[in-house]
């Protein structure tokens, strides 16, 4: 075994947190730069993992860079067991990238700076941990660890209703987690010898009786669906997104929501094939409802950030639709593409909304107009990402939605997929309407004459997201090759 790369992804941010905690409180710049530089390390490691994995392991569905299993709590046979495959590798890189980007975007935090950056690094550790854990208990621990810094980040640095949003997020997610805990316990006592190794549990789960499979599957589904969030479990999302500070919204949309869909693909989908088969229609239906519902609600929003938040509900709906089309590798691949592309695009949109909010101190769509003339660079970038979000060909959103629809069309009810496609049209409608009302039209010189253009640091934060969006949009093959073997294996497992 070589250098424990995966452990370092988790523990470097934790060490960073400890370092930041011991920095002098009033040296804001030192704290900001230290934590950003620390987060660069796991980011580079995660990039290197993508590179290395692509050339060495991408053709194989087996776990790579495995660490452990080392016995952690022997009495309960709980292990410290890490490993990655084609579905966790790109999400790790996304987490690494968005963490650094968000830390850079947090430089305008000007009170309780030390706590903010310490919590942020803890959050990063938790996210990385979820994507590398292969022991279900460990997975659960990371899943929960992340809630605490998130609670603080929303609650201290958030908007006017931050206390409400923070506790709602915390309670809602914990409510989901208790279902996961029950499923963990059932799986643990069903497996023989008792184990919580996710890979071994695949055999345990699929050998269970149908009714027990259903119970476990539904319990896990509730836990993951709350995180995604799948309609009707989405009500925490608008509150949390709107109240959270910009960088936290980016992480919420870019990484946290993905943990729900990742959990499904990693844990429950391949574990309970029978239950999955009988429920796949309903899962896809929830996805279809989310697509249309999210898009319609987005259209009615007056607040820019809320619009982006509800568009997330719609976009994650595509993922759920794809996850319902279990027989199609194409749809599942599309789901992975959508997860990554949504992370990039929505992350960028939240960053850009934050940029405007910092200057204008309002996010009300109706308050703006004609900004395009005053802030050409900012508007250009914003329009770029709006186009990406509505699925313009040549950008990542198009690829993922296209793959999902092609896959789902063959695997699912044609009517349902047909209706879901309307979501694309609606998506175009709310995005274009927003672009038109904010960037075009008459410019209010008196009110917005003092607006300043997007600065260099802010361009640096969205730049990489822009490049990746374009790259995946134009040349998706490398990403596809990265995940192909793993996803094929997953689909085989689901078809057992």
């Amino acid at each position: 075994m070589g250098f424990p790369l995966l452990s370092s992804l988790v523990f470097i941010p934790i060490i960073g947190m400890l370092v930041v905690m011991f920095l002098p409180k009033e040296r804001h710049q030192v704290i900001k730069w230290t934590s950003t530089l620390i987060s660069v390390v796991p980011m580079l490691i995660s990039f290197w993992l993508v590179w290395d994995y692509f050339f060495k392991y991408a053709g194989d569905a087996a776990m790579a860079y495995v660490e452990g299993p080392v016995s952690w709590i022997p009495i309960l046979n709980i292990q410290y067991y890490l490993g990655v495959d084609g579905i966790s590798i790109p999400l790790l890189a996304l987490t690494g990238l968005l963490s650094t980007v968000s830390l850079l975007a947090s430089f305008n935090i000007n009170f309780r700076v030390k706590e903010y950056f310490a919590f942020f690094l803890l959050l990063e550790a938790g996210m990385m941990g979820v994507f590398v854990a292969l022991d279900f208990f460990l997975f659960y621990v990371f899943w929960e660890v992340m809630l605490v810094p998130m609670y603080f980040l929303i609650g201290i640095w958030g908007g006017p209703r931050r206390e409400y949003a923070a506790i709602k997020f915390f309670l809602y997610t914990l409510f989901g987690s208790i279902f996961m805990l029950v499923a963990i316990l059932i799986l643990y006592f069903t497996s023989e010898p008792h184990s919580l190794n996710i890979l071994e549990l695949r055999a345990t789960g699929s050998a269970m009786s149908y009714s027990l499979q259903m119970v476990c599957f539904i319990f896990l589904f509730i836990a993951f669906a709350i995180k995604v969030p799948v309609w009707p479990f989405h009500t925490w999302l608008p509150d949390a997104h709107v109240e959270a500070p910009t960088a936290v919204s980016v992480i919420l949309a870019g990484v946290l929501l993905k943990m729900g869909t990742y959990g499904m693909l990693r844990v429950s989908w391949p574990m309970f094939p029978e239950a999955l088969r009988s429920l796949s229609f309903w899962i896809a239906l929830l996805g279809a409802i989310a697509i249309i519902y999210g898009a319609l609600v987005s259209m009615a929003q007056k607040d820019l950030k809320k619009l982006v938040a509800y568009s997330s509900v719609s976009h994650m709906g595509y993922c759920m639709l794809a996850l319902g089309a279990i027989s199609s590798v194409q749809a599942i691949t599309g789901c992975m593409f959508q997860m990554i592309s949504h992370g990039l695009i929505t992350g960028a949109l939240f960053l850009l909304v934050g940029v405007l909010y910092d200057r204008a101190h309002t996010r009300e769509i109706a308050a703006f107009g004609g900004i395009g003339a005053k802030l050409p660079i900012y508007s250009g970038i914003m329009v770029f990402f709006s186009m990406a979000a509505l699925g313009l060909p040549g950008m990542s959103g198009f690829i993922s939605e296209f793959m999902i629809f092609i896959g789902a069309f063959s695997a699912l009810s044609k009517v349902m997929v047909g209706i879901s496609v309307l979501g694309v049209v609606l998506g175009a409608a709310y995005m274009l309407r927003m672009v038109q009302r904010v960037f075009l039209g008459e410019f209010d010189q008196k009110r917005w004459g003092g607006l300043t253009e997007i600065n260099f640091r802010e361009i640096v934060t969205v730049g990489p997201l822009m490049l990746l969006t374009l790259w995946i949009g134009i040349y998706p093959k490398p990403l596809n090759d990265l995940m192909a073997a793993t996803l094929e294996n997953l689909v085989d497992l689901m078809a057992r």
Partner: protein
Amino acid sequence: MEFQLPEYNLLKMLPEIFLFVWALVVVTFDLGTKRKTGSTVGYLALLGLVVTGVILIFTGYGRGFGNMFFNDPLALFFKMIFLGASFMAIGSSFGLTHQKIVNHRGEYFGLILFSTVGMMFLSSSNELLSLYIGLELTTIPLFVLAAFFKDDKLSVEAGVKYLVVGAFSSALLLYGLSFLYGLSGTTDILLMKVNLAVTQLKFEGNIGIILIMTIMLLLAGIGFKLSLPPFHQWAPDVYEGSPTPVAAFLSVGSKAAGLVAFAKIMVNGLYVFYDPVMTPNDWGILVGVLAAAAMILGNVVAIRQNNIKRMLAYSSIAQVGYIMIGMLSFNELGMSSVAFYIFTYMFANMGAFAVVAFFEDKTGSCQIESYSGLAKSSPLLAAAMAVFMLSLAGIPPLAGFLAKFYVFAAAIKMAGTDSAYHWLYWLVGIGLLTSVFALYYYANVIKTMYFSTSDSPYKLRLTAPALMVVLIGLVGVFLFGLYPEPIMKFASNIPASLGFIID
């Protein structure tokens, strides 16, 4: 029959004897120096506890006084908890002594030590009478301690209330024990098991009524000590009125003692009913209902509390509900999980109470809202409190989570192996659901400390003994959350030593 003197083996009792003598030393030292010793007497008490702990380790396993006094893994484990709780309670009492009880330091610390001795005897005794005496030695000093602020109406009320309730419940317990004696003809728990099994009692006629009464009386007697609903009403008032470290000691030490009594009398002593007439299930479901009530009532009512001591009182009622899930699992995992739970609970709860006690000493307030903005003015205090709250709420990777997981695991295991125990699923379900409620009020404390934009008027720096207690709490909560192995391993010896697994 020839009467044989039992082997006394006094050496096995050395820790108790030493601590008893030391308690006398502490009291007389304070008197002898004309009450001018300052906090020296407190440090003396702490030293005594440490020395007792060392003696305890070297004493090892064994038995004395025939079958009356056992030093088995159960006793050893719980004695560690009692010593630890006592240590932390005394450690957080130093601020108190300066302000309010200047002239009675010796008695105050001495009484805590006496109560600790009682708990230690209780956990070692395997005989109904000595067990009862241990329980009394535990609670009688606590009556006095609860009323220690003589000029404070609330404290006096707490003392009287606790005295009345405590005496009443002891009477009930004693009545129940007398029935047990009548049925089995012995007070030795091991012998009692055998005798009860041989006599093949049935739920018929007078014997049936007596059986039911026995169980009811025992349950009520111990239920009061555990503050298990509907026997919980005294707890919030007593916690609120007593000196805060005493409330802390009540919530951990005295509760652990009640659990030991429950395990010894109910789980162990009555388990033999398994074969002929009664399964533990018959009264297990009854206790299960009480445990469910504890979790629901404790967690829901705690949400409404403004006073942090009352909140912690209700939280401790709820925590007993969780512990009872493990107890009612009636399997090896269950008994070890109970021990592990109370062990980790000690760190989190004593730590939280230490913060509350320190805050109260400095500011005179126990209202949750006066903690507002504490994170900025006193970061360490607030951070420690936040960690304790999260551990009590059961958020990983803190020890409180692992304890809950362990307890639930035990219950699910039992429910899965024996269909008669399916009701445990419901209990686990209620436990999990109410733990979401619990998060609300624990997080509320964190919210008050961290999210407030206004500045706190208090800039508090922890003083040495309080800092020590808080650090012990923090280390325990983190260490046993991340590396629980040694304690879990130790705790896994307990069921066998309790001997309640017959087959």
